[in-house]
């Protein structure tokens, strides 16, 4: 079984849940930018939650079903057709062999996940089928003409018609942030400033991270921080005072201080923010230095 890519839109890659456990070798986790949406797409077609699927950036994907398929789309809700018939998101959809699936541009959100029952069976690299756009590890970025094998189903198709999902906001996305680990490198009011007004997502954004624009976060200390390990969700602040939010393909280490880290599933929601949208950080009190 396979599918053949006809068109990719701005960027389409194969993603799963990445390569945890190799950061010590300089290999980042990578994987779906919005992990919750990937898991949901897989569950809807009866796959393991971490099976490989297509991550589509800003719609525009078209592919041909070489065999009969069951697919599901999650994340940014693209208008879509299969063999010319309209199909909806967050639901399993049967696609007959030969039919072409076409995704339009989503009215909200940025990344759409297309899971295929059986999962995409491209060759894994270091235990994962994720394309790491920063280190170049994993399958090639998808291009027209690429044929992607589909694996054997591992479980039954769940008896679900449509999964309820949270509506994606058209503008402001509120996310929780824990201050630290390097909040002490900043002026006393910097953490408060971070939460004081919304930050705009700039066009300088990709799977590695998104540059934000908003209140300047001033440093209280000069000098260089020796490089240290970085996590997904980290808000790293270069000397300009404008934070960069790290996403799935972030570098394993970095040399600028991190003022705070977006927590848990909230990173998924930031991965759905388009340039021009705003992030509002709700700074949580809670864990302090141990």
């Amino acid at each position: 079984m396979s599918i053949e890519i006809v068109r990719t839109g701005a960027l389409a890659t194969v993603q799963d849940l990445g390569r945890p456990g190799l950061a010590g070798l300089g290999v980042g986790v990578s994987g779906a930018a919005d992990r919750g949406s990937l898991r949901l797409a897989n569950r809807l077609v009866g796959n393991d939650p971490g099976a490989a699927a297509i991550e589509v950036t800003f719609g525009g994907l078209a592919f041909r079903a070489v065999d009969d398929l069951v697919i599901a789309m999650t994340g940014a809700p693209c208008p879509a057709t299969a063999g010319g018939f309209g199909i909806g998101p967050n639901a399993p959809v049967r696609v007959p062999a030969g039919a072409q699936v076409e995704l339009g541009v989503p009215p909200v959100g940025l990344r759409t996940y297309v899971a295929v029952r059986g999962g995409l069976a491209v060759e894994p690299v270091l235990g994962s089928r994720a394309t790491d756009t920063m280190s170049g590890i994993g399958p090639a970025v998808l291009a027209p003409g690429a044929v992607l094998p589909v694996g054997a189903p591992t479980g039954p198709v769940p008896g679900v018609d449509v999964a309820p999902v949270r509506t994606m906001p058209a503008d402001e996305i509120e996310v929780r942030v824990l201050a630290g680990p390097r909040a002490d490198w900043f002026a006393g009011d910097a953490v408060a400033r971070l939460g004081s007004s919304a930050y705009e997502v700039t066009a300088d954004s990709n799977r590695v991270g998104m540059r934000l624009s908003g209140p300047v976060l001033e440093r209280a200390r000069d000098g260089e921080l020796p490089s240290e390990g970085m996590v997904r969700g980290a808000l790293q602040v270069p000397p300009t005072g404008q934070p960069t939010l790290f996403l799935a393909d972030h570098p394993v280490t970095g040399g600028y201080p991190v003022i705070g880290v977006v927590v848990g599933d909230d990173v998924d929601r930031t991965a759905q923010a388009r340039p021009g949208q705003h992030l509002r950080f709700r700074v949580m009190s809670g864990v302090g230095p141990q």
Partner: protein
Amino acid sequence: MRLLPCGDAGLLVELADRDEVLALFAGLDRERPDGVIDLVPAARTLLVTFASDVTDLGRVATAVRSVELRGGDRGDAEKLDVPVVYDGADLADVASLTGLSEREVVAAHTGQEWTVAFCGFAPGFGYLVGEDDRLHVPRRTDPRTKVPTGSVALAGEFSGVYPRESPGGWQLIGRTDLVSWDLHREPPALLSPGVRVRFVEVAR
């Protein structure tokens, strides 16, 4: 030791020096505590990431504190000989920067044991620290856009082997045939944290 929470699934441990970083890394890597996903050693820190549905910050912090930081504990890390042809484009510059002759640079590089302190920059790129400061040199003021695979280089207090062709600003002193990074090998990186390295001169 200072423990700095890094979101809800990470703990950044700040240590006194690199030896402590390697000792804590070795201690946690020997028997990874439940739920720990990644250990990322760096110059002065060890980042511990964990699955927040399996464990929590408190339990990870307890595990970190319970590691006895024995000086010089580098676990059961392997020893690796790296064959090098010392004909790098910057060998003469390194000689003048260090006040050594080219032959003395080679002798200093082969005459000490190096330890991989951490990886970064690119997959499989290890930052090796030596035993003395004779070869501490600044980066090139004019970085190269292409450094060939296998280049053996110096920068700051570190030596390194370029795992694949990439841009780079380190001073090139030689080259090795050793494949330090191979995706189809388990493990893919030969120069992983804690590994002890001897550079061995071979004829060109």
